[in-house]
């Protein structure tokens, strides 16, 4: 009885989660430029449109560039900080950990507006690189969390052994610490990358009028009616996210990254 209830419950939740994507996937393969479901005809031309139409291609390029750079900057901020907190006893330094988590905890419109007032005040409003910095600060939480988790899982006696053998700080970091936390760096980067790819309001408030990322492009296009290209972009994005998280799960320990204690998922 209970397993039947569980199956039905999981099926309904799965349906709820999948239904919009199924309909959008259907719309994305429509042959004509209509928003119809079930799809009429079959064509992958709307997927081609993302790469062939210069407007959609530029938006895709802008989104990917922004995500690649801002995730890298987020990791560059998170790595030395979490290393320092793991290596040193400096309780006051925890305040920076807190500052790194804060932008992500508050409603995004607040970070976005803070960035807007700041860039406008210092005179850089609308510069493409301001979006990179804004996204890096907004998403620094993700590498911070995965890296702190990574550092706590390092066995300190390993580092102790290297130290006794005469390795200096730099060598220890390069040969012992870095290989051990590399999976956490990669997953922190992956999380920040995927979320940055999809982020709307911070990008809109910082460079919305000069750089059009894909979410901004979709929102602007929505005002003039629907085109199946939006549907194909949606499917492209959700597939990209699923592939990246799938890879994180394949090569890392996803349940542990998300808070389970040990690797058996209990």
């Amino acid at each position, binding site marked *: 009885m*209970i397993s039947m209830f569980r199956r039905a*419950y999981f099926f309904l939740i799965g349906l709820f*989660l999948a239904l*919009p994507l199924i*309909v959008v996937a259907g719309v994305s393969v429509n042959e004509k430029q*209509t928003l119809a*479901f079930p799809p009429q005809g079959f064509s992958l031309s709307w997927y081609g449109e993302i790469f062939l139409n210069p407007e959609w291609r530029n938006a895709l390029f802008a989104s990917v560039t922004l995500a690649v750079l801002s995730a890298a900057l987020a990791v*560059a901020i998170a790595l*030395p*900080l979490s290393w*320092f907190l*793991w*290596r*040193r*006893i400096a309780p006051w*330094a925890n305040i*920076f950990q807190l*500052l*790194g988590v804060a*932008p992500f*905890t508050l*409603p*995004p*419109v607040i*970070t*976005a*507006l*803070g960035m*807007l*007032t*700041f860039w*406008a*005040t210092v005179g850089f409003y609308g510069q493409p690189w301001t979006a990179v910095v804004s996204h*890096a*600060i907004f998403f620094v939480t993700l590498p911070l969390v995965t890296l702190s988790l990574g550092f706590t899982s390092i066995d300190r006696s390993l580092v*102790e052994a290297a*130290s006794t053998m005469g390795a200096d700080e730099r060598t220890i970091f390069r040969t012992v610490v870095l290989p051990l936390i590399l999976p956490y760096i990669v997953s922190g980067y992956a999380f920040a990358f995927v*979320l940055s790819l999809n*982020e*709307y*309001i911070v990008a809109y*408030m910082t460079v919305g009028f000069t750089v059009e990322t894909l*979410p*901004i492009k*979709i*929102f602007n296009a929505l005002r003039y009616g*629907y085109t199946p290209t939006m549907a194909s*972009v*949606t499917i492209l994005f*959700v597939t990209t*996210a*699923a592939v990246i*998280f799938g890879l994180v*799960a394949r090569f890392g320990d996803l*349940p542990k990254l*998300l*808070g*389970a*204690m040990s690797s058996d*998922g209990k």
Partner: protein
Amino acid sequence: MRREPPQTLGDYAPLLFPAAMLTIFFVVPFGTMIAVSFFQRQQGGFYTPAFVFDNYARFLSVFFGGVLGFSLLLAITVAICCVVLALPFTYMLTRMARKVQVVWLVALLSILSLSEVIIGFAWSTLFSRTAGITNILVALDIMAEAKALTPSFGAVLTGMVYQAFPYTVLVLFPALVRLDPTLTEAARTLGASPLKAFFTVVVPALRNTITATLIMVFIFALGSYLLPQLLGRPQHWTLSVLITDQAIYQSNMPFAAAMAVFLVLVTLGLVALTVIAGRKGEAA
């Protein structure tokens, strides 16, 4: 290697870059926003440094009070719906095989990372007359004629629950995965049905987690900005929408900043409440 306090100035070097970045690009912008909220607005979209409370006073009108009330009510409804749906789901998920868990977690993360624009677009398609869910119902002979289900409050609520559900599961996951399985086993041995064990053992044991999750989802939902615009009518717009509207289209930065500061205060107040509730729960 044991942790040591920094001894030389050089030991602080790794902290330099992160500390500078977070201070310059988070603390300073946040401070700027607070300062601007007290500035005097000039005609034509400019503002001059001042120390006035006009922007906050204006916020205390019936109209903005209504918007704030609606935003809070919407966020509370979303939080309750999500926790009610996600608690049994997450509990059962943590009891499943690891492989199954990973598949669900990947799916949930993928949906969580979807842009609000995309979620809004997907649901507006699903609720539309031409490509929507009503077409499926017509095909099944349940409904006579396809119709549009958006814009409406129900559409906004559905979209927001969809957006917040993966987040809720991921917030609940660590606590539920670490829940001592012997608790329910004991209840089962004593003759409780699985359902009864869930409600009399699991739910009370997780009281603090549930409260904390409710508040976190509430804050998450409070940040929703595009879904009310894409799926609702103007009366369904939230504070986030108004803040952006004032900042970008009305060029009234001081007023937008005042509303944002107010939103921060509400959020922080709720976080403080969670901490207090958590402490009380521990003491009891």
